[in-house]
């Protein structure tokens, strides 16, 4: 039927990092729509409960997250999901990370440890990521190399200084993630080719 529209493909990149590190700001600075917010209840949907009969009395944890959208082409749409900073429960939200092209881990040099949980999560799942050092108050008080060493990152993981209020800077961080993803895809191709 010719009236039925062509379905685009959707991709996503996650924006993670500690509380108040600039995730929502980054989503807003590159999204074509103001950041939207949605939520999921961990007890019911993600802890394996199919039906609410009998669990009404149980406490649930609501995890909210914001996201934006970038239309790359009519048939290709990229979604950016900011993960909730303080809430550890997003780690149980499988759907959130599944199939992600990559992730940004935003970090503040005054409290790098707030980003460690996100880094562990993406390393364990083999999701390519880049670390963005959000330079609050114009503080460029350390180099990417120092941060990489302090966080014990794989030297191949990109670390970039950024100000995510600035669209060009946020774009640069996204391109760093995609470079990491591309390197991963090339390596996969090379090892598949070498096997023949």
């Amino acid at each position: 039927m010719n009236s039925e529209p062509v379905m685009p493909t959707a991709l996503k990149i996650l924006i993670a990092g500690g509380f108040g590190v600039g995730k929502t700001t980054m989503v807003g600075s590159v999204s074509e729509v103001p950041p939207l917010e949605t939520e999921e209840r961990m007890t019911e949907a993600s802890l394996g409960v199919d039906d609410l009969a009998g669990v009404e009395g149980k406490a649930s944890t609501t995890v909210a997250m914001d996201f934006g959208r970038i239309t790359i082409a009519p048939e290709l749409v990229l979604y950016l999901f900011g993960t909730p900073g303080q809430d550890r429960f997003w780690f149980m939200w499988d759907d959130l990370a599944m199939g992600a092209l990559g992730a940004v881990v935003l970090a503040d040099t005054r409290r790098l440890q707030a980003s460690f949980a996100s880094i562990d999560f993406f390393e364990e799942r083999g999701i390519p990521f880049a670390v963005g050092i959000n330079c609050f108050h114009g503080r460029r008080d350390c180099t990417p190399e120092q941060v990489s060493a302090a966080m014990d990152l794989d030297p191949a993981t990109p670390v970039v200084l950024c100000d995510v209020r600035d669209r060009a800077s946020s774009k640069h961080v996204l391109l760093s993630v995609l470079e990491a993803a591309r390197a991963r895809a090339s390596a996969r191709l090379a090892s598949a080719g070498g096997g023949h």
Partner: protein
Amino acid sequence: MPEQRWRTGPETGRYLRPYAITGGRTRHSQHAFALITLVVARTAHLADAGHLEPEAAHILHLCRDRALAVAEIAALLDLPVSVVKVLCGDLLDASLILVQSPPGREDQPSVELIERVMDGIRQL
């Protein structure tokens, strides 16, 4: 403390109400949707939509001219993502929507796809 939300206070309705729309279901028995599964209304079939729940009709309306992700629908309707997934499952059963699942865990992105996304970001 958290349990009390279920029994007292103005939030009670907010926590229980969304699942009344789905008859208490938090998952659809047939269809799995992702946060970025895209949904579009099958325009030719909108005439069959008269009997729908208001929320389901609202989804069809939002997705009439464009594809929206499940997460976008949830945000616009102010409903939990899991409720929207159940409603979309019912709409799919009724052949009222078309859906496009995103690449899954096994579909590793190609170099070409990643470079297309990079070009798109550069052009923003």
